[in-house]
């Protein structure tokens, strides 16, 4: 029997790297919009006061001793959620690009039980957000490729605003791509038989900090993600972590 997502069994994870200026207000906002949910900030080896600010704002903190990159940080969150027995995980990036108002939308979609992963998309529906024409084109090309690989329409392949169930959190806690993980993770879970669904969520410009994808990083991003997507297809599927195998076990 499926369990509804509620206050007791859902964890919000917020990966943050050098976000001391925006993390405090984001956590306060999350606690205001969804006061019943537990919030864990994963401090990815920041050199500023991110961990301290997060604790003062009332969140639990996973203080990683060194910088693992966003993939490693998020994975720590999945692992923590799984070990602590949570049934659902909401991931909300620490740069404040996504409004916590969207969490309710995610939970609603999750409770329909149609998917294991709900992605908060910036480009679905009316509130299409074009920040920069190059980036917009890049994301669209990536979205097309990923849609073809997943055999399902993806509009926002790089979204860091997602919700998943316990099974998928377990799978991701075992294997998750290292850097720029979102598109690859989507392709990986799809191969293991998991379902995803996109919902439209409100979006705003980042309040502080910088995007990790900038300058030469963009080129690296494109090459890395395309290489990973192609090479992953050539890998055999690890059925131990497939949806069918984990059903009712974790």
């Amino acid at each position, binding site marked *: 029997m499926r369990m509804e997502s509620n206050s007791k069994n859902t964890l919000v994870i917020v990966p943050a790297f050098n976000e001391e200026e925006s993390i405090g207000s984001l956590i306060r906002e999350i606690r205001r919009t969804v006061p019943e949910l537990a919030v864990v900030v994963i401090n990815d080896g920041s050199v*500023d006061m991110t961990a*301290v600010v997060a604790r003062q704002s009332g969140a*639990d903190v*996973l203080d990683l001793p060194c910088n693992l990159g966003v993939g490693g940080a998020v994975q*720590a969150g999945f692992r923590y959620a799984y070990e602590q027995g949570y049934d659902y995980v909401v991931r909300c990036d620490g740069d404040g690009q996504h409004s916590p108002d969207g969490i309710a939308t995610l939970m609603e979609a999750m409770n329909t039980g149609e998917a294991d992963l709900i992605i908060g998309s910036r480009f679905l529906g009316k509130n299409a957000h074009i920040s920069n024409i190059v980036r917009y084109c890049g994301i669209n090309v990536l979205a097309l490729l990923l849609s073809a690989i997943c055999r399902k329409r993806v509009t926002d392949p790089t979204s860091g605003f997602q919700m998943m169930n316990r099974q998928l959190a377990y799978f991701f806690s075992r294997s998750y791509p290292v850097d720029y993980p979102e598109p690859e993770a989507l392709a990986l879970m799809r191969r293991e038989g998991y379902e995803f669904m996109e919902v439209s969520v409100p979006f705003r410009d980042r309040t502080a900090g910088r995007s990790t994808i900038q300058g030469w990083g963009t080129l690296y991003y494109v090459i890395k993600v395309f290489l990973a997507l192609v090479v992953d297809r050539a890998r055999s599927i690890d059925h131990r972590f497939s949806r069918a195998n984990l059903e009712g076990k974790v």
Partner: protein
Amino acid sequence: MNPNTLDESVLYFMNGWDSAVTARSAFAIFGVLILILTIRVLWKRDCTFLAATLWLLVGAVSVVFSIIPQPIVDFVSATEYFARIRVIMGGISLLVLLTTLESIRRTKLQERYALLWVVTGLAIFLCAIFPRAVNLFRAVTGMQYVTAVVAVAFTFLVLVAFNFSIAMSAMECDRDKIAQKVAILEARLRELERKIGKDPSLHDEVGDKAAKSGKSG
């Protein structure tokens, strides 16, 4: 002397060296000094076999070379280019092999990483001993002897580098797991301390915090 096998500039230098008595004496004394020091260190047994051998070799060569330069020049010029290259290749391969084995002995290097180095050294060594094998390779590829040896060595060095990349990836994977586990355990420890009424912030690195705030503010 055969001018075909010894370069003219070397000959010029050797003629000058023959008459430079002061420089030769200084060089000889320098070599003797090295020999004495090495033997003294060897006597006390506080250096490695490899280092001692190398230093003894350096000392002996400089002494012999400064005392009797002419016979050495004659001897070297009597050999072919090919033979000299083979000797040098053999020397390099022995150096690689000895360094690798010594590093394993001192447990500085794990055997699984040393394997490719040993193979590299052996490959160059075999090239030096059996030039006919290299000749076959040369006939197929059209390379010169030295180029062929370098190509073989280069191939193995690429393999060594690749081996390191794989090792590094595996290590990073392990590091990620350890870091995640540490962070989760720390969070649980804090929770536990909070429950038993102990102030977890006591364990915060106060100096760290001060440094961080100083940096950002």
